[in-house]
């Protein structure tokens, strides 16, 4: 297994230790249960924004902790949703007295573990709400759609709204709108290898691509011949555009996230063609993120995410943010 790791069972712990040493000006790490929290937590009088995720998607979520985004992020085992006690302990650490919003990616584990945590939190008198992220268009049934790139965008928008001093209901409203206006789809040029597994989760032959892939190494919806990037962009972006019913005059935030092992050069080539495709449709690309923002260990490929913006969402997107991964 070609990896820079020690004991696979310690990978998550050692990564957290490295994060803490790398960003002492932004975050702290609590161990057992594990969670990462902003250095100035709790921020009294501000709604707390919390999210959890399996590890292996870095910088999602631990890279998004800081001013203007997450108050805390709970990292589970690799590709495994964290447990309720992580969510609850994080809540207690960062609660500012006026409520907390959990950003939940739509996977059985993410939903159930957060649900349990919220029940426990409510029992203890905390005011909690959640926003569901289910932007993946590769899954037809809407209720079953995976939460993917929208997690980054919703966390930023919710974080900005919280920083503005909004109350929980207001933040829930704008976060849910951001979630509802976002669609994503992924394409993989390789599988990924989880340290505890020791081999790729699936085998993708040369000259093939997995379309409609998720971020946990599972196979996608279908396997096709790998084509030129411009055509890949068409294949991946069309279902997003259709499902979102994007039309001329719309304004979007576009994210092209590498899945982990794709070089930056290719991500910008993808973005260049995505931008062209949208522009030709009369859709204005108002903002963009291109890089590794939500990954799947060492998977090759990318995720395309489009959020239909309105003035309020744009304002919240532009609000200052200071986290390991996002800074402006």
């Amino acid at each position: 297994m070609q990896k820079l790791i020690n004991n696979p069972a310690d990978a998550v712990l050692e990564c957290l230790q490295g994060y803490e040493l790398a960003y002492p000006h932004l975050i702290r790490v609590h161990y057992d249960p594990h969670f990462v929290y902003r250095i100035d937590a709790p921020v009294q009088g501000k709604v707390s924004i919390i999210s959890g995720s399996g590890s292996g998607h870095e910088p999602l979520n631990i890279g998004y902790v800081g001013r203007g985004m997450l108050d805390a992020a709970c990292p589970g085992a690799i590709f495994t949703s964290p447990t309720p006690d992580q969510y609850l302990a994080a809540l207690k650490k960062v609660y500012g007295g006026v409520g907390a919003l959990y950003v939940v990616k739509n996977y059985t584990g993410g939903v159930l573990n957060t649900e349990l945590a919220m029940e426990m939190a409510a029992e203890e008198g905390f005011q909690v709400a959640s926003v569901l992220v289910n932007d993946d268009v590769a899954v037809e049934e809407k209720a079953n759609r995976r939460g993917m790139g929208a997690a980054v965008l919703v966390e930023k928008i919710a974080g900005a709204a919280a920083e503005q001093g909004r109350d929980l209901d207001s933040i829930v409203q704008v976060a849910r709108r951001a979630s509802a206006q976002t669609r994503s789809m992924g394409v993989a040029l390789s599988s990924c290898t989880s340290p505890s597994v020791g081999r790729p989760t699936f085998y993708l032959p040369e000259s093939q691509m997995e379309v409609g892939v998720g971020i946990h190494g599972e196979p996608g919806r279908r396997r096709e011949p790998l084509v030129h990037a411009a055509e890949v962009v068409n294949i991946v972006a069309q279902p997003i555009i259709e499902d979102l019913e994007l039309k001329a005059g719309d304004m979007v935030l576009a994210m092209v996230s590498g899945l982990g092992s794709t070089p930056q050069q290719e991500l910008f080539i993808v973005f260049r063609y995505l931008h062209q495709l949208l522009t030709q449709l009369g859709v204005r690309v108002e903002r963009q993120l291109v890089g590794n923002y939500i990954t799947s260990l060492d998977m090759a490929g990318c995720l395309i995410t489009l959020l239909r913006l309105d003035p309020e969402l744009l304002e919240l997107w532009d609000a200052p943010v200071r986290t390991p991964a996002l800074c402006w």
Partner: protein
Amino acid sequence: MSQEITLAQLRRWLLAFTDRIIQQELYLTELDAAIGDADHGTNMRRGMDKVRQRITDENAPCPDVSTLFRTVAMTLISSVGGAAGPLYGAFFLRAARGTNNGAKSITLLQLAQMFRHGLEGVQQRGKAQLDEKTMIDTIYPAVEALEQAAQAGKSVADALALAREAAEAGMKHTIVLQASKGRASYLGPRSIGHQDPGATSAYYLFETAAETLGQEQA
């Protein structure tokens, strides 16, 4: 004749379950690699290590059946994660409520009742029905078989053997199903032809029950 199943026997069964899961970690990982994210084996193993640790802790023994099941539930919930953690947690938590507080032994009927409660717990949390290619496809028929056998007055050994048979058939049946719940559902038709990992780990519950509880008498 109303056979008693003691706290000690239940403990031994659960330890056998943890051992079986730990032994099958690689297999569960492979199943979850084909139609998932390859973590079911690792996660269940981590949880079972903790359960084993917890219920062999001589400084804090579980005094009754209800506490034993609740302890297993809380341990799994706080250590497994993913989909399986809350679902197995729900199973054991709701099973715990199917018995009287303080009871140090149960009858076969009560065991069936506990398992029925556990099944309801999993279905309430996960909202899965039969034939959605989940652990329900193992647990549901096993619980049905156990209930019927208990109501028909069968011995503990015979009842658990029937439950195991039903569980095994249910687990194998998941092979031909297309998943409509859980991670495998993202694959659509590509999930067909692969045995579900959660249905497999659930089978071990009934397999080890038949092997341990079914072999001993009060």
